[in-house]
């Protein structure tokens, strides 16, 4: 047997250890510090080198040679030299590994190997082998390039690599390889070259002769190190013949553990199954060769072995039937384990799982502060914070231990400096109290004010994970202020969220400084506040600041309920207006002018705040909402993040309090229309229908004038659409004209807290044209959308114009056509999510290592300059005001 081959392509050859923490040396001196500091000594992987394993290396790293396909003996004990050999690691509790002497979970597992009876091609290198065979002489093994060109070519490749990186070099090599195909005479030995073709997946044919893996290997061995480089193989790391396997490494048992079913039966891992096949066929091949069996039998077995090894590496090779379980489901072998979202890399390596986290449904609680999270008491008793014992807190911590894990502010575990973890129970409590001393840590229950990281998936931006303060509350849901819904994109229709408790001081410090809600208030996407008032809070402030007047006592009551106890900001009079009350929440020196979305009673949309007094305008979404208006941004800029968040919380509470006090209802009667309005709407719609019919008549007479670049039919469609849309908009106008200003629905639409004029008019008057792909509905039956219409009816109703409103109810055909667009938009959402998700993943992957360097340039991981100054002016969007410096504000402030 020629010496051996290589295997799993991945192999970490060197792991260099770098720097130990410098404290380590000093620590030895002072005894008390030793324990503490040792935990800070760490090793760091500096780099990883990839290569291909040589047969020698495979044998050297193996701790067992596998010779039998049997797994267990009669007692159920792993067979020596079998695939579950305990020298390869242990997966049974109680057994010790014969190689390292460690137990389950301690032993990392060890490789084994098998000697192949005949060499076999490694499927993942087939393409490389092919280009090697094509590019070298079959006789002398030299590259089909004259000597002088070799040097030149090498230099050229090196230059390409320097200029544009490894990927460009690979491309250049590929091009070179295709050019080599045409050379048919060896420049060294003048041998005539024959064409090498590949019969996928792994048979090489030269001329008309099939090359066996032995032949191929012999050819590859002849290639010199010098020539190899041109093929993109690096001497010292790779030898071409290693791409043909003569020895196969057997992965450790720990990476293919068997599971014991309830019945006591063992179920082996897919990889073990596959390896069993390989070992079995390999043994048979050995026996047949030794017994001098006819070549044809040996060939067959050899081919079978090749198949098994191929599927062991990759069970989804295009031209091969995948190896299957008895149940018919394909085996998951090495390539499938690495690849895809559920594979090793994305699932286990790039994705991490943690302890000290919790997940439950969320519900709103407007009385919480914006940066608080309500944690159910059950959760608070399970999640803990380790607190280090010192002379000042020992008694305090002892109280927690005394209460134990069952009573609320208690503790669950004690951590000793040697790393032992002891559970606190009623029995161990007293002993542990005795034992507790400096340097221990107590894992106590969550208490109010602890730091937690709150998260909702999909985590699309950094505001999807923010740090909140714990507030322990009864019941079983996480509670949050509805104003922070927006950054998480959460609602309360059953959404669940996750909570993580950072366990070290460093983690807590980072969470507090970098992730707490107030630090995330200004979005790095557009430089405005992502947190703002929502729904009721906006409606409330709108009502309050528009036209409310109240007694002084009432105003004081409102202020108290919002958490303001300094009433000096209220003007000294008995009647207080809503605007004055609102102003009491603003800082005294706050100046602001902006635009509101809705008009004040005097009809103006201007908002003026002078010296902390709201003089003009109503507060609505344009100023209180998220991502809108500069008012919140200016508050943040002038008074800092804490103050801004606090004010926002109060404003929000004030709005809700207003609604509580004055009542707020969205009633069906809100959409009742005056008789005159109804008549007008009917007229408009009738007229529109007539217009459409007229257009159709003109079209049928062939007199319709076409738009440039359009056919007559398209022109008709466009004109009909225009007519109908105009009609719908007119009904909308009439609805707003006749709407009663102080109904709940109108207030919501006007203040921007929910819905808009469109929704109002759809309820009250007319739903309008249902459009699909920018056209009227066309699909359905032959020549018509529904069977209740005439064929080829071009009229408005037949193509989805709904003239009823939601309140009056739709006619049957309208309902069905409305359903068409409903489904269409469902499809749209369903298809968009994965598409945009993939776009996001690609963007994130491409740009994740761009960062600003100390010199202000933006560079990638290999220090190539992407931008000389971030965004051309080096400004951080989250420190800007809507992406700019607000010069007007600066001028005004001077």
């Amino acid at each position, binding site marked *: 047997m020629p010496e051996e081959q290589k295997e799993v*392509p991945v192999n970490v050859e060197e792991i260099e250890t770098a720097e130990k923490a*410098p*404290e380590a040396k000093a620590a030895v*001196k002072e005894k008390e510090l030793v324990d503490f500091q040792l935990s800070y000594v760490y090793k760091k*992987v500096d*780099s*990883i*080198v990839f290569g291909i394993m040589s047969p020698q290396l495979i044998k050297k790293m193996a701790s067992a040679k596998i010779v039998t396909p049997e797994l267990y003996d009669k007692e159920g004990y792993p067979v020596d030299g079998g695939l579950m050999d305990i020298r390869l690691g242990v997966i049974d509790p109680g057994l010790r590994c014969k190689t390292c002497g460690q137990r389950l979970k301690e032993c990392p597992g060890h490789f084994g190997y098998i000697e192949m009876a005949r060499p076999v091609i490694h499927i993942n290198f087939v393409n*490389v082998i092919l280009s090697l065979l094509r590019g070298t002489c079959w006789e002398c093994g030299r590259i089909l390039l004259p000597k002088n060109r070799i040097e030149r070519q090498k230099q050229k490749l090196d230059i390409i690599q320097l200029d544009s*990186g*490894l990927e460009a070099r690979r491309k250049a090599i590929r091009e070179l390889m295709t050019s080599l195909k045409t050379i048919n005479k060896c420049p060294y030995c003048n041998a005539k070259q024959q064409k090498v073709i590949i019969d996928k997946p792994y048979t090489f044919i030269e001329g008309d002769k099939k090359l066996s893996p032995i032949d191929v290997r012999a050819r590859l061995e002849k290639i010199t190190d010098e020539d190899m480089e041109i093929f993109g193989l*690096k001497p*010292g790391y*790779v030898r071409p013949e290693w791409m043909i396997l003569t020895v196969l490494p057997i992965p450790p048992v720990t990476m293919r553990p068997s599971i014991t079913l309830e019945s006591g039966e063992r179920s082996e891992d897919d990889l073990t199954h596959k390896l069993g096949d390989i070992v079995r066929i390999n043994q048979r091949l050995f026996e047949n060769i030794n017994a001098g069996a006819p070549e044809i039998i040996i060939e067959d077995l050899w081919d079978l072995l090749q198949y098994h090894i191929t599927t062991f590496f990759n069970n989804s090779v295009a031209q091969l039937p995948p190896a299957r379980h008895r149940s018919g489901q394909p085996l998951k072998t090495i390539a499938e384990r*690495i*690849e895809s979202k559920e594979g090793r890399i994305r699932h286990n*390596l*790039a994705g991490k799982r943690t302890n000290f986290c919790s997940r439950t449904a969320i519900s709103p609680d407007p009385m919480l502060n914006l940066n608080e999270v309500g944690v159910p008491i059950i959760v608070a008793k399970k999640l803990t914070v380790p607190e280090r014992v010192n002379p000042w807190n020992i008694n305090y911590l002892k109280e927690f231990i005394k209460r134990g894990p069952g009573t609320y502010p208690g503790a669950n575990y004690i951590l000793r400096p040697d790393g032992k973890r002891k559970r606190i129970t009623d029995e161990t409590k007293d002993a542990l109290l005795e034992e507790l001393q400096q340097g221990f840590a107590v894992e106590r229950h969550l208490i109010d004010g602890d730091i937690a990281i709150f998260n909702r998936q999909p985590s*699309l*931006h950094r505001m999807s994970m923010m740090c909140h303060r714990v507030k322990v509350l009864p019941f079983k849901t996480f509670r949050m202020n509805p104003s922070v819904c927006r950054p998480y994109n959460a609602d309360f229709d059953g959404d669940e969220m996750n909570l993580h408790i950072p366990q070290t001081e460093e983690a807590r410090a980072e969470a507090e400084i970098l992730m707490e809600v107030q630090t995330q208030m200004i979005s790095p*996407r*557009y430089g405005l506040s992502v947190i703002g008032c929502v729904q009721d809070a906006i409606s409330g402030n709108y009502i309050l600041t528009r036209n409310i007047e109240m007694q002084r006592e009432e105003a004081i009551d409102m202020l108290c309920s919002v958490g303001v106890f300094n009433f000096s900001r209220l003007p000294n009079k008995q009647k207080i207006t809503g605007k004055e009350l609102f102003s009491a929440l603003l800082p005294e020196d706050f100046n602001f002018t902006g635009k509101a979305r809705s008009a004040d009673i005097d009809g103006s949309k201007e908002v003026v705040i002078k010296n902390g007094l709201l003089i003009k305008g109503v507060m609505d979404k344009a100023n209180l909402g998220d991502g809108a208006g500069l008012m919140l941004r200016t508050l943040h800029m002038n008074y800092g993040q804490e103050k801004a968040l606090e004010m926002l919380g109060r404003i929000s509470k004030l709005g809700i309090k207003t609604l509580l006090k004055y009542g707020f209802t969205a009633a069906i009667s809100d959409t009742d229309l005056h008789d005159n309005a109804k008549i007008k709407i009917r007229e408009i719609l009738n007229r529109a229908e007539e217009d459409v019919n007229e257009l159709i008549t003109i079209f049928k007479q062939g007199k319709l004038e076409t738009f*440039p*670049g359009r056919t007559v039919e398209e022109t008709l469609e*466009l*004109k009909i659409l225009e007519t109908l849309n105009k009609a719908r908009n007119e009904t909308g106008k009439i609805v707003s004209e006749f709407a009663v200003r102080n109904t709940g629905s109108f207030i919501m639409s006007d203040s921007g807290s929910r819905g808009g004029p469109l929704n109002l008019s759809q309820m009250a008057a007319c739903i309008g044209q249902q459009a699909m*792909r920018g056209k009227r509905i066309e699909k359905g039956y032959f020549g018509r959308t529904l069977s209740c219409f005439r064929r080829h009816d071009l009229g408005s109703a037949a193509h989805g114009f709904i003239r009823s409103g939601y309140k009056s109810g739709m006619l049957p055909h309208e309902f069905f056509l409305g359903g068409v667009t409903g489904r269409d938009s469902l499809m749209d959402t369903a*298809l*968009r*999510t994965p*598409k945009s998700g993939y*776009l*996001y993943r*690609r*963007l*994130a*992957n491409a*740009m*994740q*290592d*761009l*960062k600003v360097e*100390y010199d202000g340039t*933006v560079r*990638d*991981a290999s220090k*190539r300059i*992407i*931008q000389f100054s*971030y*965004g*051309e002016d080096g400004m*951080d*969007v989250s420190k*800007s005001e809507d*992406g700019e410096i607000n*010069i007007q504000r*600066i*001028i005004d402030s*001077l």
Partner: protein
Amino acid sequence: MAGAFKEYEDLLSPKQLGEIKEKTEGMNEAKVNKVLKKVYEQYSNSKVEAGESVGIVSAESIGEPGTQMTLNTFHFAGVAEMNVTVGLPRIIEILDGRKEIGTPMMEIFLKKPYSKGEDIKKLALNIKETLLQDLMNSVSVDIAEGKVDIAIDNEKMQEIGMRTDSVISAVEKGMKGISVKKTEEGISVKLKSKDEKLINEVYKLKEKLKSVYIRGIKSIKQVLPVKRGEEYIIITAGSNLIDVLSMEEVDQTRTVTNDIFEIQAVLGIEAARQALIKEVFKVIEDQGLNVDIRHIMLAADTMCFSGKVKGITRYGIVSEKSSVLARASFETPVKHIIEAGLVGEEDKLNSVVENVMLNQPIPVGTGLPGLIVKVKK
């Protein structure tokens, strides 16, 4: 006054200076100086901090609103405008660096007097690519003679101001091995070679004739003169920047296409980058979303910094990362690991994902600085 601005000329952006100039109109110098100083102070405080991982922030800022965009490919802005790819599909198309875009389009601005609407229709028709099929009324095949008779639509001919003779010469130019004759109805095309398989050949000829180029600018499928503001412009479906720009009537400084690769080929990489930013920004703005232009700039710069427009795909810029593990964590990991093995590639672990995989601090943000503390003896 000017002195004050001069001092800050290099410190503030021209846009900011312009705004200050405008808004401080009529103020005394001391005050202007104060404003300038304050603005500069604010600007300095708003600079990005070193280590800020601006890449991921930009990716989030573009990716997150993606979920809110429509998928509906087509869109009519106004009655007579054309279909244009908008929303998420357009963003994907641009960032993919796709060479073939869904709806190539040009906006052709014109020099005076054409921009006032003079001869606008004629000009538009000159730009539009005219194929023989656009001019024919009917085609008939004469198998016996081995020829194709084409009846020409005289109305259309008049419209574009062409004569049958020029059509004949265009057809002769556009095809080989034929002879063209003028007939009463229009033209008749005959194969030169006397082949036995004539019947097939004649039918093939008929099909080929339909798409023979007659005049206009190639690949401009549709033209639409539009009045925008005070002037007339021509919007086209299909794009051919270089040919349009070489027309005399065209205002080269403002005429644009939405095909980024064409811009790259004609005007170079900087223009392509600008076009990229503009196109992405336009889409996002149209959808009513607010994304700061800096994020789009960074994405565009990542695509363009190598000197060629490269898409954000596994074949584009992701394939050029220096780290094996970073590439493997994106797509097709096995391929990347094998390739790395062949050349003995070393992963220096200096970007983000590799360090996440190994549970090590990542070299951005707070993971960047190395801090050494001297322990008191």
